[in-house]
């Protein structure tokens, strides 16, 4: 539910609007629900509105979690069967 994507703010406009970029696609969105947005920030976009900012450090941390090797890291085949 609630299709939302992280997009990069490339321009903050008048009247609570911003231009965001995702992979080269640009779109005007509303910042009515979020304060203190700056160019360069990543925000989570849903139905044309920025819902929240994305914290790059937390994202790195989470990615790092995925890469943590489990103890049975060298054992094969149990997972993908």
């Amino acid at each position, binding site marked *: *539910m*609630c*299709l939302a*994507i992280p997009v990069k703010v490339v321009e903050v406009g008048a009247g609570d609007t911003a231009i965001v970029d*995702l*992979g*080269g*696609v*640009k*779109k*005007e969105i509303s910042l009515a629900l979020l304060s203190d947005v700056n160019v360069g920030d990543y925000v989570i976009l*849903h*139905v044309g509105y920025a819902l929240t900012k994305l914290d790059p450090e937390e994202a790195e941390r989470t990615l790092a979690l995925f890469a943590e090797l489990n103890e049975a890291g060298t054992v094969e085949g149990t997972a*993908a069967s």
Partner: protein
Amino acid sequence: MSEAKRGYVRPLDLKHGRVDLTHGSGGRSMVQLISELFAKHLGNEYLGQGNDGAVLPAPTLEGRAGRLVMSTDCHVVSPLFFPGGDIGCLSVHGTVNDVAVMGATPLYLAAGFVLEEGFPLADLARIVESMAHAAAEAGVPVVTGDTKVVERGKGDGVFITTTGVGILPDGLELGGARARPGDAVIISGSMGDHGVAIMSKRENLSFDAPIESDTVALNGLIAAMLATGADLRCLRDPTRGGLAATLNEIAGQSGVGVMLHEKAIPVKPVVSAACEFLGLDPLYVANEGKLIAICAPADADRLLAAMRAHPLGREASRIGEVIVDDHHFVQLTTAFGGKRIVDWLAGDQLPRIC
């Protein structure tokens, strides 16, 4: 019309004029529209005959016996002008491609126009010029045509129906029912460019994507593919419904399954991104300058090499294989490592929020 009568008519106002109902009424205004706009741009010896239809040299194949191939498509695209093309060239490419993917050499096109009252003549001229250019590039002349005008609010600017005729040599049999388990599935390039280019210009979706439609005539590429002598089972252009619809069609016709490999399917980053914005899947988005080839596995590499050597097949990729499947599913091994069905599109491909 003879010169004696032509002298009476002031030229069409191609700058500010608009289509009105008199342009479809069978009188001099219609004759004028046809001669100053359609004939002017599309003109060739056949179209110039001015009869109820065109008389055309019987197709020949340098002595080989052959069959006719005939295909028709109505073009109703909105907007009429989009990045990378317009309804004019699209209507040529679409039908040239449908004839060419049958293995045939496209020879002649017919074009029927339904114009909406009020449509700017300047736009019409741009469209017809673009058709003429596309037809010349593809080497397939528009040999006959028709124009009708409908009242404002009963059309959408312009609809163009093109019909193509081509010649198919005996012995060459391509078709959706000929795929066999083990065959290679190849596409000629990236998926979804056309559909995303169109959507990027739809008023209600306003986003901005640096993407152009891939609309192009594929008969040249196909000729190069046929010249390899590869054992082709089927060619098809994945237009409406995209790769997903086309492969489901073929799977159903041939009574087989298809297994695709997501990693091998080229999708431009900007197309992926636009699809993320809209909640769409690029495999269901229309293409207008790509083809799917199903080919005997032994010949796949040779075919792929020939495709990549052609400017329109540089990004050709072997994306999967035909498999045995009583349910005729198209499946996909995801880049992530799982497997899923790539089913028919249900309903319309609509932007989603959830």
